[in-house]
């Protein structure tokens, strides 16, 4: 279906006067292809055609561009791939544009005074991106930077069968880095599977055995299918042996992976629950507005990021104290305004805080609108840490695990080592006594509630990296948070940690086996049954009963 493809040569004559004709879908026709005169053309000509071409034509143009092999070729293709290649509508000058003013491709001049409507991106689609990546990889295979070469080699795994063997041989002979060479050998191995010679094919299988690259597994299973279809028993057996070895390694991987997923989920639960462990666990406030404190933290992150759009990484760091302050101050205000009138009536705190949560949700909806807000992930949080080619740990989860533990550690430190922590414990243990010792219990209460809320705000910063930032986001965490705190044992930070992590891991171990929903149901049933066994949670304070009244 290329009827809607936009392009091109028909209008080459109108090139300079009417670039917008390119948008005219009706006149485009699928059968029109690049004309023969293209042979004579230079890089510049091809690129000029790019501004007008449809996606199919662009693919052919890219292949022609590759052949030009001029100094600009590689940067242009990279810019095209990244979506940084634009043209000025008036005059069709090709420019690179990232964040600042556009820079011309030929000549490198900076063009000023152009608005966003004056230039237009040269769009690419998925197949073009695939093509570009493959083509660029072929060039980058000879880059000086080993990291670039490695990426290029890995990219070539995907298109190994289309590769020029001479190019691969050359790369292999030049490659000094053992790791990259290994990958190139895999590329060669995949190619060997396509060979007409059975011996070479078997050689290929041997070369591929034990590699965890998904492409290798893909090539081998395709090969096995072919061998089965052809009735080639020997090769099938060899391929299946290689595959089963890979699968065994993958199974081992997946155990580790599930554990990691579990800890990552546990970290999210922990972050969500720590604040509640203070407001509910320590102070006994059934704080239904806890989720909204998380939400406030996430919105703070959004606002901070709007204030410093150029630097998402730094803004995230700034957001942490900012979110703590915002949510914390709101928490103090709530405590002073409402909660303090309700001490000794814990169930009524449920009512009041539920009302508050409705108000806060609607307030955020009125201020920011009902839509989710986009919070940008800084680059250092994106990507994965590759343990092996089939096991990659996502950085953001890794950071969140570390972050959650840090927050917990900081909190423990505050409670154990500071005067405020001491006063807080004194007030919760024996209010009249603390009061008679000159502690201003009112302020300790307010600050404690503020602390719990502030920590919920910090959780919001972290969660903004994982999920929606919207008026309802708090609702999705409130129930889980209560489960964690109660499961761990009310009033026990250590219990909150162990509770969150074990619920996370149990959930993730069950999930591949039972599915996401059933896993969650099972976890809930598990909590219900567990509480029967230990009615005061995992880490209950034992001892002579003091609850007689």
């Amino acid at each position, binding site marked *: 279906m290329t009827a809607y493809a936009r392009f091109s040569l028909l209008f080459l004559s109108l090139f300079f006067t009417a670039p917008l004709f390119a948008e005219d879908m009706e006149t485009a026709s699928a059968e029109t292809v690049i004309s023969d005169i293209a042979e004579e053309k230079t890089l510049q000509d091809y690129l000029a055609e790019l501004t007008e071409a449809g996606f199919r034509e662009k693919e052919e143009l890219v292949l022609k561009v590759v052949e030009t092999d001029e100094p600009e070729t590689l940067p242009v293709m990279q810019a095209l791939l990244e979506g940084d290649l634009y043209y000025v509508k008036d005059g069709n000058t090709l420019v690179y544009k990232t964040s600042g003013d556009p820079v011309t491709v030929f000549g490198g001049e900076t063009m000023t005074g152009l608005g966003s409507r004056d230039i237009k991106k040269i769009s690419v689609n998925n197949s073009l991106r695939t093509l570009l990546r493959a083509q660029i990889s072929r060039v980058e295979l000879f880059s000086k930077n080993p990291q670039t070469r490695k990426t290029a080699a890995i990219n070539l795994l995907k298109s190994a069968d289309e590769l020029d063997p001479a190019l691969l041989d050359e790369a292999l002979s030049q490659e000094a880095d053992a790791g990259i060479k290994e990958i190139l050998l895999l590329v060669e191995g995949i190619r060997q599977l396509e060979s007409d010679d059975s011996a070479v094919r078997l050689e290929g299988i041997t070369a591929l055995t034990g590699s965890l690259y998904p492409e290798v597994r893909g090539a081998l299973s395709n090969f096995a299918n072919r061998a089965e279809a052809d009735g080639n028993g020997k090769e099938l057996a060899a391929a299946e042996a290689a595959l089963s070895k890979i699968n065994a390694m993958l199974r081992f991987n997946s155990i580790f992976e599930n554990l990691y997923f579990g800890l990552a989920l546990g970290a999210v639960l922990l972050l969500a629950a720590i604040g509640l462990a203070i407001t509910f666990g320590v102070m006994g406030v059934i704080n239904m507005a806890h989720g909204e404190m998380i939400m406030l933290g996430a919105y703070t992150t959004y606002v901070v990021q709007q204030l410093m759009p150029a630097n998402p990484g730094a803004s995230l760091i700034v957001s942490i104290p900012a979110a703590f302050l915002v949510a914390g101050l709101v928490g103090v205000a709530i405590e002073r305004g409402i909660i303090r009138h309700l001490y000794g009536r814990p169930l009524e705190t449920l009512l009041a805080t539920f009302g508050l949560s409705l108000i806060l949700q609607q307030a955020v909806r009125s201020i920011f609108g009902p839509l989710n807000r986009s919070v940008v992930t800084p680059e250092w949080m994106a990507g994965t840490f590759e343990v092996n080619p089939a096991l990659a740990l996502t950085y953001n989860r890794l950071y969140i695990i570390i972050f959650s533990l840090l927050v917990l550690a900081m909190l423990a430190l505050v409670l154990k080592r500071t005067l405020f922590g001491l006063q807080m414990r004194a007030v919760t243990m024996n209010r009249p006594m603390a009061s008679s010792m000159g502690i201003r219990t009112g302020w300790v209460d307010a600050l404690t509630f503020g602390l719990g809320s502030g920590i919920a705000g910090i959780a919001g910063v972290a969660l903004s990296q994982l999920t929606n930032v919207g008026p309802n986001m708090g609702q999705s965490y409130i129930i889980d948070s209560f489960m964690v705190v109660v499961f761990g044992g009310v009033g026990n930070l250590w219990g909150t940690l162990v509770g969150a992590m074990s619920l996370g891991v149990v959930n993730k171990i069950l999930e591949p086996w039972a599915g996401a929903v059933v896993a969650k149901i099972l976890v809930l049933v598990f909590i219900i049954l567990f509480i029967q066994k230990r009615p005061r949670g995992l880490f209950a304070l*034992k*001892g*002579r*009963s003091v609850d*007689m*009244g």
Partner: protein
Amino acid sequence: MSIQAKHIEQPTVLYLNGVSVSFDGFKALNSLSLYIAPGEMRAIIGPNGAGKTTMMDVITGKTKPDEGTILFKDEIDLTKYDEAAVANLGVGRKFQKPSVIESLTVFENLEMSLKGGRSVWAALNHRLTAEKKAKIDEILTMIDMTGRAHDMAGSLSHGQKQWLEIGMLLGQEPQLLLIDEPAAGMTDEETMKTAELFKMLAKKHSLMVVEHDMDFIEALDCKVTVLCEGSVLAEGSLAAVKANQKVIETYLGR
């Protein structure tokens, strides 16, 4: 061991033998042994943390002992029962802090405590018979609260709540009463009245009274057991106990 060995052949209402309980490594009761004879009144004293309340918890089924046996009327092993069952077997307990049902009236509190009709069904179909009413009136007189029968228990004074609770114990008609610091918070006059009441009760019931107030114990005029660190330190008349060197060192001396 030597103490109870002498009496092993006599009938007992309560018989604790080698009872131990520990919480997180802390031995609240350490091989505690003691017995109470039918119709006996016994005062238990001991410093804080001696295990008095834990002992009551263990007897009434609230806490399960790690080891040891507790025999009621020489045949029923109380460690096998929970609170409600122990109460229905005939062991009544009064707490240190008065625990009456504050949002019910004095009358209702007593009505609830009357023996029998503990099942859900019985409670649903309960009728206040003349017989029961008479019994309640009797208790009201005994605890001197006839005039306040229809007041909320929550509106009573501290001492009155203590009395009401004792009255509720009587309604249960237990054979053994465990009473934790009944004199706490009472005026001297009330204390003496309470002592008189107890002495009267001791004719029909066995009583175990935990108390700090020496005047009160003096007034009770009964055998005294001194607990310390979860086991019996000394036993005998108040005077004998007071003279005991070990007791002086660990408790009275301070």
